[in-house]
């Protein structure tokens, strides 16, 4: 829907922004949000509703006043009256505003445009039907929606992950994928390309003087040093294995698919991943069944995840904690990164922590320069703007 507004410096302006979305049915908007806004005394907002020739005129007196704003809609086909009540404190920097929008619009269809449908509906592109259910439950366990605010489900974090799995992330197009693939956690001696790597302590001979390196003096001397994530498969395959592994482990350890577990057991199951409690091929610290062999094993078994991998382990070649690392990272990113990627819907993740996104100080007419935000003695929290809004150049 389109919206024209002036002036741009009214503290209750964001309430007006909500009117369009909230005009269908009654809805409390901005109940607890605290955003900075520039003070002013009056404002007029004109909203043009699509599919109508009418205009909605909103007049507000603020701040420092408790006003009642009556909105009269003259949109054809409707007989609605929208009442906006604003309570605005006299703060010059930060205002708390509580607004209630009620609507008696009888003909709602004109407001629910096709565009709105597109904005609210989404769909999976990559995750299987069983993975969709499982990952939604996992994401919700990692970031619950609770009394303090939205969680992964509110933010649609799974859609972020789903889209990533369909893109260059899923195909590992930005990942170095040359072999050999050696598990990073291996602790037993091995030979690769004719070169033997014994692990353990090492004696250096610098000049004529031997020096025994005491590094990692006891145990856990990783022969394959370097970095984690030494897998032959791409990220989509990695996730397929990991999600199947979680179901296999969840069934074995807690008696059911992850999404059926109690909240406590879900938390426990996720914690178990970090502690590598599920079975995996590298558990013995050897190369046996690891790398490419383990990958094949798991791929063949994913159609019956609850039964685990035929003749193999629950996680195959994947170290469970490696998958946990990726899982948690991606779920949190689905809560935090720009909505353009499919998560953080409505910028709920940003609002939760107070990140202003691409509102650099004046996106909604707050009137700040970025430098003023930087040197302000009291933190100024702005309503976030998304990358899409920023590029469009208007709220």
């Amino acid at each position, binding site marked *: 829907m389109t919206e024209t507004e002036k002036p741009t410096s009214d503290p209750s302006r964001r309430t007006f922004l909500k009117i369009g979305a909230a005009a269908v049915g009654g809805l409390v908007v901005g109940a607890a949000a605290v955003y900075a806004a520039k003070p002013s005394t009056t404002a007029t907002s004109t909203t043009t509703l699509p599919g109508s020739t009418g205009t909605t005129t909103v007049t507000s007196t603020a701040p420092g006043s408790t006003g009642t704003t009556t909105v009269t809609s003259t949109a054809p086909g409707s007989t609605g009256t929208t009442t906006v009540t604003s309570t605005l404190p006299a703060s010059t920097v930060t205002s708390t505003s509580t607004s209630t929008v009620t609507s008696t619009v009888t003909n709602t269809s004109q407001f629910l445009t096709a565009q709105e449908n597109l904005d609210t509906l989404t769909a999976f592109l990559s995750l299987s039907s069983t993975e969709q259910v499982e990952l939604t439950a996992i994401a919700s366990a990692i970031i619950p929606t609770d009394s303090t605010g939205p969680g992964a489900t509110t933010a649609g974090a799974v859609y972020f992950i789903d889209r990533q799995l369909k893109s260059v992330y899923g195909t590992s197009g930005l990942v170095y994928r040359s072999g050999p693939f050696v598990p990073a956690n291996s602790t037993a001696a091995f030979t690769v390309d004719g070169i033997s790597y014994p692990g353990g302590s090492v004696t250096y001979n610098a000049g004529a003087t031997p020096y025994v390196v005491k590094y990692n003096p006891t145990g856990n001397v990783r022969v394959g040093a*370097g970095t984690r994530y030494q897998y032959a498969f791409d990220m989509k395959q990695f996730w397929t294995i990991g999600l199947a592994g979680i179901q296999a482990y969840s069934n074995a350890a807690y008696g059911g698919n992850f999404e059926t577990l109690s909240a406590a057991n879900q938390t426990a199951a996720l914690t178990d991943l970090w502690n590598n409690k599920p079975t995996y091929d590298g558990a013995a610290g050897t190369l046996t069944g690891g790398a490419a062999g383990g990958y094949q094993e798991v791929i063949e078994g994913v159609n019956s995840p609850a039964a685990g991998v035929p003749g193999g382990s629950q996680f195959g070649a994947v170290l469970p904690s490696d998958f946990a690392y990726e899982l948690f990272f991606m779920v949190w990113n689905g809560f935090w990164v720009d909505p353009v990627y499919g998560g953080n819907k409505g910028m709920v993740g940003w609002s939760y922590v107070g990140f202003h996104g691409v509102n650099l100080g004046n996106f909604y007419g707050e009137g700040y320069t970025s430098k003023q935000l930087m040197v302000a003695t009291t933190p100024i929290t702005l309503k976030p703007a998304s*990358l899409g809004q920023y590029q469009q150049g208007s709220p």
Partner: protein
Amino acid sequence: MSTVITEPAADVVLMGVGVVSGTIAAELTAAGYKVAGITRGPYWNFTTDFSTTKYDEWGIQWERKFDVPASWGSQSIRNNPNQMALPSRRATFPIQYHSFGLGVGGAAHHYGGAMGRNSPWGFAMQSTTATRYGATHLATINPFDDTEDWPMTYTEYDPYYTAWEQNFGLSGDTAGSAGSGAAVGSNMGGTPIPMSKNYPLPGHPATPLGTAWQAATEALGYNPFPTTSSLASEPYVNPYGVQINGCVYEGWCTGGGCNFVCETGAKGNSAFRSVPAAVKSGKFTLSLNSEVTRMDTNSAGLVTQVRYYDAAGNIHIQPGTVFFNGLHGGNQVRAMLLSGVGVPYNSTTVTGTVGRGYTNGYLPFTGTSGPSGKIPGLGLNSIAGNGGGGYTLYEYMDDGFDHTGLGFIGGSEQSAGGYSGSGPTNVSTAGGASSGSQGSKYKQTLQNRYTTGGTAANVGFGGMAPDLPNTMNMWDLDPHYSDIWGDPIPRITHEWTPNPYLAATYFASSVGNVGFLAILNKLGAQSISSGGTTIVPPYTAHNDWWGHHIRGGNRVGSSSTSSTFNKWQQAWTTPNLFAAGECNNTTGDTVPSGTHQAGMQSEVASEGIQMYLKSPGLLS
């Protein structure tokens, strides 16, 4: 079959066009020479390439969309020769952290612009330590010590620093009177270090924490200086005649994972500082999206040409008179090893130099649990900012305090007040998720942390000290892994030396934290943690992120037996090959950035190259 194309010969050929090559491009073209630059990415235009798409935390912080894709190649890492080095496979966290700059300006597109000169001590760590603590002290505290002095002293390097600072447009302290010989801006143990000229631009506007930190530390007798930065604090025209925009402090700048590209060109980068002058001269050719793979040499031991691939896979031959190896870190070493230029380092026999003296130059972040506290009533908006706006103390770095009996040398800057300006993924997963990164309580913890405590600023101290060179840590060619052209990737063998850990432990101890606790008290901090008991013991740092804040590995020095380049940044073995970069640092004491030192070295190389072109031969 690839087509082979021979390019017209140039006086100077630049291998890579990052920060250091920009200096050579601008100054050698100004001197009338024909310069050819070859770099493996595009020439980003900040107004069109960055201004609308940089506000993308996922794309920039994590997918590194303006950096070299890891799929092109990598580097492998191990702690010791009994291990097999495994390659880093992704450019960033959560799993690892190796992103390389792409295009003109290179890694300066994704750094934070933290700057700082080495102190006189930083150029003479070996000799100064021997004098003060005894000739065998370094060997005692640093097994298989390989520390060397730089080939020149601070006083000799000072004019090169000054030249580079003016050209690059550094912001920092300008309180000293220029030219008086007493200009401050860095100091050691509270003693101002003379700079022959002030930084050209003032420090960034002080944040509330910066102001509080300055007042508190001054009251305690310290000398706080505005934190030095390569981000221009004001519009500026540098000596090359290039117009530079000032920073607008929008945030989206520094970050926990890696830093954002700059949409105004304020962030110090050769693409916006020096290369424009070279392009304008008409004497500069720039081959973009092209990767140098080999130097070819003749029987006299001189480089005659380089070979590079263009984006279509064609092979180009670029002949020249002088060659400047401006490739970053391991790639600089690799190009020499692949080409048979210089003597490869062997850590068993301790012979050769190419790959020798590698240090990570940076504290592992598992060891930073120094004293900290919260300052009630002091709110932060860490979202806006550019990393500047703070103040830095130099009293705890170098040899500014007595290290007798401490088991380490050096220390580090202590600064506060620079707001990071980055998004929320940094607080949740930048340092790595863990089993605790779930549930309602954790979610609320992040909310509090991101708003930086809301109204109570967190101040913490770190005990950083240099990772010292030893004869074991090194670079060579990996025997298992190769890049898209089929060439071996660089391999790092590195284990942390005890020095930074012992420093961290000391500064968190009841003896070492006295000064820090006093500052916290002066700031009115509450909930003060003395830090302390949880310093990770040596040698257990995770090993997923090496190779990006390097010092050494292909160093300058006074002896051809232990260094690759002489004091003119000229290869001992190959007089028409010059280089500059962090890997050419010998040691360093300014944390975290070696760029300031590398930039200074590029000015030395610029002079050396001009001397060579007038009178070819090994310079002295």
